[in-house]
């Protein structure tokens, strides 16, 4: 499947159908998820109404981690097969991943102040997510630091592969160290620890974030691809 889609023509032909479906799904999931998150789901017995921040914070964290993991996988493909589409994907996905990480940190801080009494602590979970933000910023700066874009993408691919060590650190930080951040409550051994009245809006918002990402990254990917083809054509003429 992955190898079949490695053909850019085939990939963009499939993307032409996937993008509108993802856009419609994202709109529907955002509408239903926000209604569930803000109106239907109950207040938490400890957190009160502030628990509603979780429905936009947790999906942002999932997406930030998911985008980085997909970029690292694409970077490996780029380093092994020198595949231009993989490089273009990393370049296109990075700003969205950076924004999702920033959103995760901002919404987490806005939840932390009323719950913990502080916007920020340097505990293992918060610090490792902050490192993820730095990795996204570093990659974005690095790919723009070279005269030819593919040189920057080559260096960026190595950074992405090296930085992937941070993903399990983020995931297990709440188990390996004593943190102010609560332990995993959705993806954990023994099943989710969240009631279904809160799990439903959380999963629907997670689907909305994922579909929203797919709907936005595909047209941006195509534009970057077309720009790169034009640049290569100009270089051949020159």
């Amino acid at each position, binding site marked *: 499947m992955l190898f079949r889609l490695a053909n850019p023509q085939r990939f963009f032909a499939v993307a032409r159908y996937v993008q509108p479906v993802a856009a419609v799904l994202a709109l529907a999931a955002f509408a239903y998820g926000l209604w569930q998150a803000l109106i239907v789901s109950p207040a938490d017995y400890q957190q009160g109404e*502030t628990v509603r921040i979780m429905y936009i914070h947790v999906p942002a964290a999932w997406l930030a981690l998911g985008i980085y993991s997909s970029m690292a996988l694409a970077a490996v493909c780029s380093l092994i097969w020198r595949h231009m589409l993989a490089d273009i994907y990393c370049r296109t996905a990075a700003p969205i991943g950076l924004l*999702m990480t920033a*959103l995760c940190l901002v*919404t987490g801080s*806005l939840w932390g102040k009323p719950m913990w009494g502080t916007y920020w602590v340097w505990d293992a979970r918060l610090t490792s997510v902050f490192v993820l933000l730095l990795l996204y910023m570093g990659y974005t700066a690095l790919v723009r630091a070279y005269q030819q874009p593919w040189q920057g993408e080559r260096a960026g691919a190595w950074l992405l592969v090296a930085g992937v060590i941070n993903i399990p650190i983020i995931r297990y930080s709440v188990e390996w160290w004593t943190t102010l951040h609560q332990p995993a409550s959705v993806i954990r051994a023994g099943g989710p620890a969240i009631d279904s009245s809160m799990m439903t809006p959380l999963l629907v918002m997670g689907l909305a974030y994922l579909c929203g990402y797919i709907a*936005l990254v595909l*047209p941006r990917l195509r534009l970057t691809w077309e720009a790169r083809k034009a640049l290569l054509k100009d270089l051949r003429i020159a």
Partner: protein
Amino acid sequence: MTHDDFIIAAYAAAAIVWLGLLIDTVLRVWKARARG
């Protein structure tokens, strides 16, 4: 700030990010189409 203020601020941040990304993507596509 009340708890409601924190909730509003968090949802406003999410709206800014998602609408910003959507508008930026639409503008990029329009500019590319205008260039041909």
